[in-house]
């Protein structure tokens, strides 16, 4: 998979729609990545598939880092993470994933907060 893999699928979204100032909101940040462990052989080429995995996920609110996650090969290829965040104002939440080969994927969502 890693060979022809184009990393482009991902999503970040709040779990609830109506957000009030000061709410603690759970967000989902999900992507798909092969997460090759580096221990398996490719059956067509008979060669070991090198480690290929998401190393880090960073979450930004208006470009301020608010939390982050470090991964190893044992996280699932269906890499869904849910995390909480207290929200005070409207703005853009961005998820930025980076894999061990330096590939980067970024997705964002705009949230509006009612006073």
């Amino acid at each position, binding site marked *: *998979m890693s*060979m*022809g893999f184009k990393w482009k*699928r*991902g*999503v970040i*979204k709040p779990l609830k729609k109506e957000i009030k100032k000061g709410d603690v909101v759970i967000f989902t940040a*999900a*992507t*798909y990545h092969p997460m090759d462990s580096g221990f398996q052989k*490719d*059956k*067509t*080429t008979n060669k070991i598939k090198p480690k290929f995995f998401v190393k880090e996920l960073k979450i930004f609110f208006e470009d301020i880092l608010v939390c982050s996650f470090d991964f190893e090969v044992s996280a*699932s*290829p*269906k890499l869904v993470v849910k995390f909480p965040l207290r929200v005070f104002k409207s703005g853009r939440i961005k998820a930025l994933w980076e894999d061990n080969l330096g590939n980067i994927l970024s*997705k964002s969502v705009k949230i509006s907060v009612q006073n």
Partner: protein
Amino acid sequence: MALSRRDLLKISTILAASTAFGSEHSKKDDDIKKSVSSYGVQNAPLPKPKGPRVVIVGGGWSGLAVAKYLKKFSPKTDVVLIEKRSVFISCPLSNLWLVDLIDLQFLTHDYLQASQNNGYIYFNATVYDIDRVSKKVFTNEGVVSYDYLVLAPGIDYDYEEWTKGDVELETKLRGFYPAGFIPGSEHFTLKRKIEEFEEGNFVLTVPGGNYRCLPAPYERASLIAWYMKKEGIKGKVVLIDENPDITIKKDGFSSAFNELYKEYIEYLPGSKITGIDLDKKRVVTDMGDEIDFTDASFYPRIRGSKLLEVAGVAKDSAFNKKEADIDPFTYQSKEDPYIYCAGDVRPMGFSKSGNTANSEGHLVAKIIASIIDGKEFKWDSPITVCYSAVSGEPIRAISVNAKYAYDKKKKAFTFKDASTMENWKGRQGIMSGKGLLEWAKGMYRDMFM
């Protein structure tokens, strides 16, 4: 004012009249009902059994093997195969037919020939009820009594996860975007869709659970992509997979996707469909994908045939809803010792494939023959042999071979002597393509000759 005796009399006559009218009415209703049911309970036009009668419902890959080998192993047994179709169409290899790599004749076979060659009765009828107390099977062509009953009716679709009970959506999905995993008109519609396809996305799906034929959706995606590439069609297959990865022969399929069909297949693993909008022709997944499609074939989850529920022998398995509640070594129903179940309805996590169903049919025939003849029998593993084509002209294929063994500690079946051949390139891939056709011919011979 109090009612007089006269008034009361009047009232009672009205009452009498109305009850008389009422009873007359319901009598008429009864007559209608009776005539329907008395028509239904006629015995099927079959000769009296000359030995213990085993009725097999479902002339698919397992039922055909049970019928033939039961007659072989126990000639005195009277075998009746009840099948609703009048012509056999093979699901295996149908993906090749979809893109004209083989013709329809290769897939179609003759039930009468099978029954003539093997000395059992083929009864062309649909079973709609089973009475386990009187041991009777109700069909649209009359009632058939049995001593032992084998249920091999295959799968039904389970649209629930997508439709959440919206039957209008389900009807549209079945009618306009059929899965093509139960052979018949679904396959004809699918073939027409492929032939008429001009541009855009052609959506295919891989369901979760232990669905029928693990490699088939990947094989189908490969072959449709092969066809688009050959015909210069400006489109691609979008394969939405509920599983986190290709479920079988992963390296073989993924290298074919990458090396042969880079522009023609978009593979989206780990995606659960969360919305299907047929008016906008758009699919939404839990991974945030929004896919607009020109055409599609939606393969939903599967479940055991509804006939199992009718017979009261169904139970949710670890993988799918309403599969056969049987002893995994004897195939005997836990509810009813006179009922056996075989093929894709089994609850064990075996591969739901033709070779598995056929070899299981041999085993179930052996088991029932032994019981009828009062002999011992030994469980043997079904055999999974499954080839998948990844391209045509010449046909190139990959394959898997496996048996099963019971792991007492894990309380589960695991693979035994399993191996795969996933290199479709070079001579090996072409040899395997030939192997695919030879395998199918061998299977048809086993079922029909």
